[in-house]
């Protein structure tokens, strides 16, 4: 069905792209054969580091004409194999398209190329007293990747997710045409929102070449509270009660002692407190310190009545760094603690999160397998890791399958969904099918077919 990529194709690519940005088989770094889901490995036939939309358009025109599969990749920090070239062919790497094109201070937007890193974007807008609220843990991800998975992050509970901050997207369609979906407007009732179809489509419908993002004024104050509890149960039971106070925290993160100790070991740095079994980390932001104090005092008092040991302030850059650097390293630390692992980022309604985490603990005991987790207790999105810990490969595969089956079934029973922010990619296809059912998968396939009738863009992903 696809035309195998041959020397003629390579010669053509080299005729339109600077040769030092074209990597053929044998010279492609192994990094480009996988993403952070290290179990799925497949090399593309050619890797092209593109510099602009016109180059992408020219590549797509050729690939479309010849029926060559194309996979787009940013930093490769995905966790579900979404950026792996399953069918080989061409891989387009957007990391050189890393320019911030325009800061529009009248419309409160910034226009960027897709390869801009999240950390660079955040630093840039903050220098200008502006704020891009989505805050996924992986700061070295590209904004293109964030849009493609509709990444959420730690501030979702108050500010929403990536989708809520996309005003417009310039894309290259599979046939090479360049289109802009949406515009720099606040309201939009102008037909189907094609822009919203692209967000979260994991590079299967079109290639994002430019994005205009909505910004907010930078809140001048931000204070976090680290609240230790003697037991996991107490910490989790406190979450819905905290949310009922309507203090509108920016983040409510849950972390266990085990996860903190892992991260300390990994970073070689101590967390400010590690004596207790479970912790909640809450952030409050705004422009009025008194009102923030009022909010966090309400929450701290409530937590103390619900059995918290204390509530510690995180109010300076140094304190924020000491806490958030540990929080930011959780995933890498869990990875380093075991020989192999797989992850699940289910999302359940906010009021079900405590029950769900408790279930993962039960399941861990039942299956005799370590299942550490951490996550956004405030928005119902959890990151759960099933660890191999030196287990025999066959037994591990069997236990992993059992664990995932049960985890996704439990989420479904609670009206949860398969992925909160990591996407479906290749690894979670089966669970998406089971969760959404035939009708919805069929609609998704039809949408894919409208955008990409030759199925050349990132084939084998999401609904395929």
């Amino acid at each position, binding site marked *: 069905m696809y035309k195998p990529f041959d020397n003629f194709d390579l010669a053509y690519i080299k005729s339109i792209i600077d040769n030092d940005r074209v990597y053929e088989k044998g010279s492609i770094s192994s990094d480009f054969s996988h993403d952070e889901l290290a179990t799925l490995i497949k090399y593309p036939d050619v890797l092209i580091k593109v510099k602009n939309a016109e180059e992408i358009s020219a590549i797509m025109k050729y690939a479309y004409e010849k029926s060559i599969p194309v996979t787009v990749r940013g930093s490769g920090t995905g966790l579900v194999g979404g950026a792996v070239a399953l069918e080989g062919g061409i891989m387009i790497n957007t990391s050189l398209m890393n320019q911030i094109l325009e800061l529009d201070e009248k419309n409160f937007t910034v226009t960027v190329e897709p390869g801009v890193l999240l950390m660079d974007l955040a630093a840039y807008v903050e220098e200008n007293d502006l704020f891009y609220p989505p805050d996924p843990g992986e700061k070295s991800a590209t904004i293109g990747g964030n849009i493609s998975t509709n990444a959420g992050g730690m501030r979702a509970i108050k500010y929403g997710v990536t989708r809520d901050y996309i005003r417009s997207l310039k894309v290259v369609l599979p046939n090479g045409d360049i289109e802009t979906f949406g515009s720099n407007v606040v309201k939009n009732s102008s037909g189907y929102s094609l822009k919203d179809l692209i967000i979260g489509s994991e590079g299967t419908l079109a290639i994002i070449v430019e994005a205009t993002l909505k910004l907010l004024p930078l809140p001048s104050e931000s204070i976090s509270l680290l609240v230790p509890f003697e037991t996991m149960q107490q910490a989790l039971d406190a979450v819905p009660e905290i949310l009922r106070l309507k203090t509108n925290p920016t983040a409510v993160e849950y972390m266990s002692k085990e996860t903190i100790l892992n991260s300390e070991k990994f970073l070689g740095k101590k*967390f400010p407190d590690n004596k207790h079994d479970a912790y909640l980390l809450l952030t409050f932001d705004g422009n009025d310190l008194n009102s923030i104090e009022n909010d966090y005092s309400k929450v*701290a008092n409530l937590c*103390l009545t619900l059995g918290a040991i204390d*509530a*510690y*302030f*995180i109010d*300076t*850059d140094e*304190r924020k760094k000491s806490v958030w650097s540990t929080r930011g390293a959780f995933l890498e630390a869990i990875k380093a603690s075991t020989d192999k692992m797989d992850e699940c980022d289910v999302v359940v309604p906010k009021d079900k999160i405590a029950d769900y985490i408790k279930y993962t603990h039960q399941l861990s005991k039942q299956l005799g397998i370590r299942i550490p987790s951490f996550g956004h207790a405030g928005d119902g999105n959890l990151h759960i890791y099933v660890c191999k810990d030196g287990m025999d490969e066959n037994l591990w595969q069997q236990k992993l399958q059992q664990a995932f089956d049960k985890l996704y079934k439990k989420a479904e029973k609670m009206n949860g969904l398969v992925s909160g922010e990591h996407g479906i990619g290749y690894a979670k296809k089966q669970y998406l099918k089971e969760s959404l059912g035939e009708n919805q998968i069929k609609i998704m396939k039809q949408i894919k077919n409208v955008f990409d009738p030759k199925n050349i863009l990132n084939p084998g992903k999401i609904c395929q």
Partner: protein
Amino acid sequence: MNIIVCIKQVPGTSNVKVDPVTGVLIRDGVQSKMNPYDLYALETGLQLKEKSNGKVTVISMGPPAALAVLKEAIYMGADEGILISDRKFGGADVLATAYTISQAINTIDDVDLILTGKQTTDGDTGQVGPETAEFLNLPHFGYVTNVEIKNDKLQFISNLETKVMKANITLPCLLCIEGEINTPRLPSYKRKVKFGSCENQIKIMSFEDMKDQNENNYGLKGSATQVEKIFQPKKTTDRLVLQGTKEQMAKDLLNILRERKFI
């Protein structure tokens, strides 16, 4: 063990602007915080207090607003605080500051150990600690990365860049604590609720409380130096791209890191 920790209130951000005409730091609208290096000294003091069943008193010299950092230290676990504050102390350079602090410490009985941070993030001189010890005629050491109680002495480790020294020091003494050697504990909400404005924990010392009543030894009059000009250093961000084979690039990188003394 009766421990004193010297702390200072500094601007809350490293991007403080300097008035180009007067050369004075523009502090309006800039939040303040405890000097980050002092947090490591305070944490060291609190750990020694726990091991020796002792007491930590924090001392700060500054305007009334500096009460905030003393309160913060009490929320972190310090027992008492002293704010040295008087218009007569204004305009003090490192010498007059160290003298004033030594006079205040002189009024406290049975001091075993004085801890300071390595330096402040606003003045950056790193001189007030050692000068205070000299005025008090106490043994002192800097760049301290570890302190252990050894009978009636302290055993400390000092990182002198080219060598690391482990030594014992008799009490009373003063140690300047290096940064990043521990993870300072966080201020406690429970202690904030318990101590509130810390009226019973913090006392204010003014010129009248000092043994030396000669005004010429304090503030601007007691200063040996005067700041002529403060200006912001030029900030530069360079990006260097290495090219070549993996081996060559690794060698080049190693050389650069060595040249710039990162390794």
